[in-house]
Every structure is written in C-alpha cells, then in structure tokens.
C-alpha cells in the first residue's frame, strides 16, 4: 500500500486498518487461549455435565475437592514444586560461572568446552535418560529426590551456559578489569562485579528453568517409581487409569497450570529483557 492508497483508504474508512488489525489479533488471541479456557470450563463441570458440552449450566468445584482429597496427587504437586525450585537454584549457580568463562576467555579450554556443550545439547534426551535408569539403580539414586534433581540440573547446563555467555558478551568487561587493577581477585571480580550486572539474565533463566522442570515428563517417567511421583507423570497415568473422568483430569491440569501461570505473568518482563541471544 503506497501513501496515496493509504490516504484514500483512511479518508473513506477511517480507522479501518486499526480495526482489522484489532480483529485479527483478537481472533489469534482467542485461538491461543481457547484450549486453556476450555480446560478451565471442563474442570468446573460436574461429572455428568462433561459429556454434554453444549447443554446445561451446572457448575461445581467438586472436582477440585476430589483432587485435594487424593493423597497421591497432593504429594505429586509437592514433589514437583520441590524439584523445580531446587533445580532452578542449582542450575543457575552452575551455569552462571560456566557462561562467564565462555564469554570472557578464549583458547583451547573455552573452545573445547563450547564444543562439548553444543554436542551434548544436540543429543536427544532418550539417549542418556534410558541408560541413566540403570546407572541410577547402580548408584542407589533411582526413585529418590536426588536422582531426579541432578539430571534436571545437568540438562540445563548446555543451553543456559550458552544463554549466559550471550548475556555476558553484552556486558562491557572493563568494569571487571578495573576491579582487578584495584586489587580484586578474579573470583572477586566475577562474584562482585559480573554477577550483579547479570541479574536480568539470571532472573530470565530462573523463570525458564522453573517452568521446564515443573513441566518435565520424560525424566520423571523413567527415573521415578512409587516414591517420588511428580505431577506430569501422575496426570499421564490418570488418562489410562481414570479413563473417562475428564472433569478430574481437567481440575488437576488447571491446578498444575496455576503456579506456572503466576510465574509467567510476573516473570515475562524479565524474560523479554534478559533473553538476548
């Protein structure tokens, strides 16, 4: 559309472009939100109402009450939040220093570490999680918190080191050099100068890491049994066990979405600010 056309358009249909933009965006928003809205609606239906989607206006909180009465589910929620929180804290501790190293130093150590990270990042999860089942049984870690937590930390190392490197690349190293000249040790320059200025990236990674671990399924499916159920695995089992109880499924899913939703809501501005690759 050239300028003349645009003027012509604006003269005869004022605001038309804005309205069509708004309409298009509303449709897209609706399509994006619909599955979640539908899930919430299903969770509020009584058992019998679920099957007649287009009839009746019965709503109830029974499904939620039933979820809270189910001990295994409550335990799964607890486990998931412990694992996600611990994995977030430790994976950040581990990757900040690794990303800093990749960003500030050159030479064979740095480049081979980058190569290793890139290669391991490519390897599909099954390739190492399948045999990890036996490795953890040998080490006595199978079906324990630690046995689930450590792989969760390990899986973040590759990607987050990469993201942290990108972030440190954008920070001028002259402050750290000044600190070194003033008699700071290398560790001091790293911990007192570089880390505080990396806080935006750290908060972005914290949000991503927590969401990843909260939502993770494959590790838990293979590495846990009866003792440490997590919410994703329990839900997947429910599909086959409970079969048609969609209202219960939906209520569990909605409860699993709440913490993630709150985190996304408050964390999105950090993520957008902190993620520059």
């Amino acid at each position, binding site marked *: 559309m050239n300028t003349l056309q645009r003027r012509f358009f604006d003269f005869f249909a004022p605001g038309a472009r804005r309205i069509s*933009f708004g309409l298009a965006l509303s449709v*897209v*928003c609706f399509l*994006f*939100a619909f*599955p979640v809205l539908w*899930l919430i609606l*299903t969770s509020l239906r009584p058992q019998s109402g*679920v*099957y*007649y989607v*287009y009839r009746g206006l019965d709503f109830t909180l029974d499904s939620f009450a039933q979820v809270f009465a189910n001990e295994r589910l409550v335990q799964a929620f607890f486990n998931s939040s412990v694992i996600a929180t611990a994995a977030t804290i430790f994976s950040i501790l*581990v*990757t900040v*220093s*690794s990303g*800093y190293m990749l960003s500030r*130093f050159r030479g064979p150590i740095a480049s081979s570490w980058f190569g*290793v990270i890139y*290669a*391991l*990042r*490519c*390897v*599909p999860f099954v*390739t*190492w999680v*399948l*045999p*990890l089942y036996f*490795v953890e049984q040998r080490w006595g870690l199978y079906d324990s918190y630690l046995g689930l937590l*450590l792989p969760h930390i*390990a899986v973040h*190392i*590759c*990607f987050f*080191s990469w993201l942290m490197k990108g972030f440190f690349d954008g920070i001028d190293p002259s402050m750290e050099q000044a600190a070194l000249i003033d008699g700071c040790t*290398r*560790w001091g320059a790293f911990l007192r100068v570089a880390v505080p200025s990396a806080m935006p990236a750290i908060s972005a990674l914290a949000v991503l890491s927590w*969401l990843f671990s909260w*939502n993770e*399924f*494959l590790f838990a499916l*293979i590495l846990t049994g009866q003792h440490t159920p997590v919410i*994703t695995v329990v*839900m*997947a089992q429910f599909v086959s066990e409970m079969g048609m109880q*969609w209202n219960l499924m*939906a209520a569990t*899913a909605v409860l699993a979405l709440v913490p*993630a*939703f709150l*985190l*996304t809501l408050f964390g*999105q501005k950090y993520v*957008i*600010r902190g*993620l*520059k*690759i």
Partner: protein
Amino acid sequence: MKLRNTWRNVFGEQQRFMLMLIAPAVTLLILFQAIPIFVGGSASFRDWMLYNPKKTWVGFSQYASVLTDPAFLQIVLPNTFVFMFSSVAISLVIGLALALALNRPFRGQKLVQTILLLPLMVAPVIAAIMVRWMFNDEFGIVNVVLEALGGEGQPWLVQRWSAFSVIVLTDVWLWTPWFTLLLLAGLQSLPKEPFEAAAIDGTTAWRVFRYLTLPMLRPVIIVCIVIRSIDAFRTFDTVWALTGGGPARETELLSIYAYENAFVFLDFAKGSAAAIIGALIILVVGLALYRILDHVRKMS
C-alpha cells in the same frame, strides 16, 4: 603436594580459574550425561533383554535390526523429520508475525502479550491431554462444533494422518510463543536509526520488513531455528500423552520408538541402539546447522 605442584606447572593461574569456573558443570555432565551415554552405547552392542540381561557382545546386530525394521524406516524416521520440519516452519512463521505485531505499542498490548505467551507455561503433557479431550470423537468440542456447522465429526486420533496433524498442531500451539518471545527480544534490540530513516523516506511496511527487519533479525531467526529443530527432533511428551504413538504405532517419533523398545518390549539393547542412531543423526544435522549459524554470524 606433588600433584598440586604439577597442577600449578601445567596450568597457569588463568587456566586454573577457567577450570574452576566450569568444574561443577563438567562434573554433572560427566556423571549424568557422559557416563549414561557410554553405558547406552555399550548396551547397544550387547544382548540385553530386561527380563534376561545376558549382556553378551553381539556386535552391530542391534543396529542392523533397527535399520532393517520396516517400522523404523517407513514410519519412525519419516514421521520424525516431517514433524520436525512442519512444526518448526509453522511456528516460526506465526511466531514472527506475532512478534512483529507486538513490537509496536497499541492499547492492550500487555494483555495480548500475556495471552499469546500463555502456551509457554503449559506442560506438553497437559497440552496433550487437553487436546486429546478437545478432539475426543464422542464428546470433544471440535466434533461438536463441526457437527453444529453441518460437518461430520471425525475420529481424529485413530487415523494416521489426522492424528499426526493434531500432534503437529499441538506442538505449534506450544512452541509458537517461544519463537515470539525470542524474536520479540531480538526486535527490541535492533537499532532504531535505519527504521527512522525508512519512515522519513516513506518506505512501505513490506519493504521495511523485507529489506531491513528480516536481514537484521536473521541471526536471531537462525539461532531459533537451530535450537528448536534440535528440540523438535527429540519430542516425546506430546506424542506420548496424545496418542501414545498410536494408532498402531503409526505416529511414533524416534524418542518414542527408543523408549518403547526399551521399556515396553523390554529390549534395552535395541532401544539403546535406536537412541544412539538418533543421536548420530541429530549430531550430523546439528553440525550442519552450526556451520550455517557460524556463516551467518560472520556475514553480519
């Protein structure tokens, strides 16, 4: 003490600092990725049924049995690649469009952004269960709407290609916000001057996009494609909770195939062989993608 001296002689002060920085990460990677990969690699050359772990060396016969398995050649491999390509391509296009729309201020921009990022927080398993319910052939909302509109309800998840399309759709829904997020961050870090100059010259929106935005955003786009392709290749959760690889194993992807062989058919060796083959394929693809990435970096 002697060891300590050698350590001091071989590595300078800076090298020691570098190694200390990565030591925890290296330890974790060795324990939880390198050792398991080694164990899996070794298992793939053995006869290792879960109910009868003889662990005798059988050479390449597990690889041969995977590579001659018609299910692997005719279903799993094509599925994996078609899935990877279509999911990444569709979510890239939609994600880019949404990032462009969000990159300018308008009323309600924050709300729209929050809604569009919604799927980012949904676990793939939950998304799959949700979609499974929506596409349920008796009570699912999709069929209800279709029938209300005069169409005919479909048993979506029991036919190969409709089930496969539903899987791709779910994955696109899940990952489009991820593209939007990274591309939006990229757009916001672009310099303002070229766009101001273009606005003064009265350049059309399409030309600004084609000759300014796209070339300047290209490095970010390529990084997104690389990361997402590698992740799409190993997709497991979505398919597992949506179709379980069915109907009749026709929507299996590589990860599902490896898992099923190991823990459903209890042939750990064959599962490991499939997982190693998958790793080799994606390493080759990943290396090629990395070359492209490096090339683009140097050009810009």
